[in-house]
């Protein structure tokens, strides 16, 4: 299998911190630690290209990854190996981004970094194996990386035994017996005293620290947000009724309330009959305008944001949250009312 290897500017021999701003580039064959990796992989899996990028450039320009992946594919790469990045944060971030971009483009990929490297999360579900903490552990790190790469090249899945770290994707497969039969078998295990047996590990959720209270609401600019699938009649943006992958924004300028027939909920998770009879019960514009007139709040944001909270993945919901927060910060909003359904 033809391999492309990713390194940062330092390991590619371009330069140290002074070269961290260097843009992405590609060379034929193995470079730096890639030479040792090539020897470990043997003739069967040659390193055909080495891609590299300055760490600062890779942190500030996430799009470097997709562009490099495209060039690697043009050079005939069939597998991407990135790192090892050890505990180097920006390098780990770059490795995580490039393997994730490769996986999305259908190019199998694998990175190596220390389990504490903050770049680990960037890899998403793309495989990462543990490396040592520093380049002093280059040799054992490369040996583990090469062993994992050979396994991946053979079409096998990597497990913790291969040193796999980070998010491990759960994938659908067919079991021998039905879920009902497995449930009955699990009852016997429970009755036999096993309290640990399960097919689904318990998830861990983020703990969110609430923002400090608004000092004086009468000075605050307030925005209305909702996960109620709230859209102008006819749903011009085609917001999904379930499993939303996007959010929408619409102007509230000149509106005193939201009228039936002009707005509707396309949420697929509850009966929208009453919401559509009075859309203010999803987006409470009528009472918010009253508060605005009374001076109880400083003002109302000129637009609302909405998505559909029905079977939405945590990853999409987190992205909406980040995007909303950035938008609201820019518009100097101090408080939001986010209606849930």
């Amino acid at each position, binding site marked *: 299998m033809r391999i492309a290897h990713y390194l940062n500017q330092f390991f590619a021999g371009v330069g140290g911190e002074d070269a961290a701003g260097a843009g992405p580039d590609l060379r034929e064959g193995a470079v730096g630690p890639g030479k040792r990796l090539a020897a470990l992989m043997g003739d069967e899996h040659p390193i055909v290209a080495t891609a590299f990028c300055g760490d600062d450039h890779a942190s500030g320009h996430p799009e470097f990854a997709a562009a490099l992946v495209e060039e690697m594919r043009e050079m005939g790469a069939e597998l991407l190996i990135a790192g090892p990045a050890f505990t180097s944060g920006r390098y780990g971030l770059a490795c995580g981004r490039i393997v994730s971009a490769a996986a999305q483009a259908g190019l199998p990929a694998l990175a190596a970094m220390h389990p504490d490297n903050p770049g680990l999360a960037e890899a998403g579900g793309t495989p990462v194996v543990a490396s040592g903490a520093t380049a002093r552990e280059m040799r054992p790190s490369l040996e583990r990386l090469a062993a994992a790469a050979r396994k991946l090249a053979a079409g096998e899945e990597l497990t913790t035994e291969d040193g796999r770290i980070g998010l491990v994707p*759960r994938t659908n497969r067919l079991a021998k017996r039905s879920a*009902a039969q497995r449930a*009955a078998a699990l009852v016997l295990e*429970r009755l036999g005293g096993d309290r640990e047996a399960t097919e689904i590990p318990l998830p861990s959720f983020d703990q969110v620290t609430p923002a400090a209270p608004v000092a004086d609401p009468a000075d605050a600019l307030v925005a209305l947000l909702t996960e109620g699938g709230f859209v102008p009649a006819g749903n011009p943006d085609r917001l999904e009724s379930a499993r939303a992958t996007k959010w929408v924004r619409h102007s509230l300028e000149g509106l005193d309330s939201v009228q039936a027939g002009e707005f509707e909920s396309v949420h697929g998770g509850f*009966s929208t009959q009453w919401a559509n009879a009075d859309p203010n019960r999803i987006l409470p514009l009528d009472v918010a305008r009253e508060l605005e007139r009374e001076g109880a709040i400083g003002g109302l944001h000129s637009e609302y944001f909405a998505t559909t909270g029905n079977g939405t993945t945590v990853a999409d919901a987190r992205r909406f949250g980040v995007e909303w927060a950035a938008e609201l910060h820019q518009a100097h909003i101090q408080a939001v009312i986010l209606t849930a359904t």
Partner: protein
Amino acid sequence: MSPSGDDGGLSRLVHEVRELVLGDRTLYESGRLTVSEEAARSLLRDPALAEVRLACASPGESVRIIGALDAVQPCSKGPGGGGVFPGFLGPALPPGRGETHVLRGTAVLAAGHLPRAQEAVIDMSGPAAPLSPLAATHNLVIEFERAPDAAWEEVEAALRRGLLRLAVHLAEAALEAEPDAVEVLPDPASFPDGRPRVGIVTNLQTQGKFKDVFVYGRSLSGGLPTLISPNELDDGAVVSGQYGHPALKNPTYLHQTHPVVAALRERDDLWLAALVLCPEPVDQGTKELVSAHAARLCAGLGLDAAILTKEGGGNADADVSLKMDRLEEEGIATVGIFAEMAGRDGTGPSLVVPPSLAKAMVSTGNYDERVSLPSCARALGGDRLALLDRPATDELELPAAAVYCALNPLGWGRLTCSEAA
């Protein structure tokens, strides 16, 4: 113990269907079921339906059904049904005793548009066929057009009545036939031996129009958990009017053939002691009341363990998790059947609301993972798949969530989800 009748048990007289065709007269003979088009149309006739079309879809055919709504297994206890589907066709009284003729390997199925229904794809062949129970049955598919001035609620009621009438009509054709098998189902209350007593707690969705399930013809919405004999399911005591979440749907067919009931019946080391039906309320206070009440009910029945099932997505997880916690507090060991919502790449958290005292969970698969369906020769239920705005016969990539019963929370399927072993 006599096989049926006065001991409270039920005998299932099973007639296997190996071939389904349309014809002039409804007939069952040696595994071949012929359906009279005229009789079927007359049973489906209703002012809310402008037109109905009948088609057959059998396992292995290059056919895709989209917009699959409810599906029903034909059954009858005698002419006119003899009391099956109580509250709809029979009087609203508990069934589940005596003898019931069942046509196994066939189903009547409606397909088309209803409000709040989604894609609901069944491929009768190819890689998605093993994911759906209705890909393994010879299906009499009912397509329909709404009468111009009919309300959608009337269309839904007409389809539901029509499917049940048809199911009884087809089973009546086998009333005089020699059954392929006689299956004796004892009354769960009658069993004296020392096996662990296992109950099934089945949550029924209760979210209003087009998302409701009926017990003796009534919604459980606003009600409390109730105990019925699992044998009543075979006689159609539970009928679905719930059309959302295709992969997480429990059609009438799977209530009639409840997979956990079947799995417990086939074991000789566990005893199916009780079936508790519960509403799935939409507010937290009622969820907690129903969960605590169901746990007291199970404790009162002296259960050693319980298996919990649900219908629908995230909100329905809360009902299962709360009940697991309350049951564990009563000293009853629990196992919950869940579908996972782990995101397209399978790295997200699997559950919205996990249980806190117990963790024995069975996975019916990840809802968000994509499945690729090859193109097919013909489609029933519609010409275009709205989700992708593509012709229904095209090659399609869909979330597993769109495949009918693919992650069935009654536990029908073999689909599961895990990290690499």
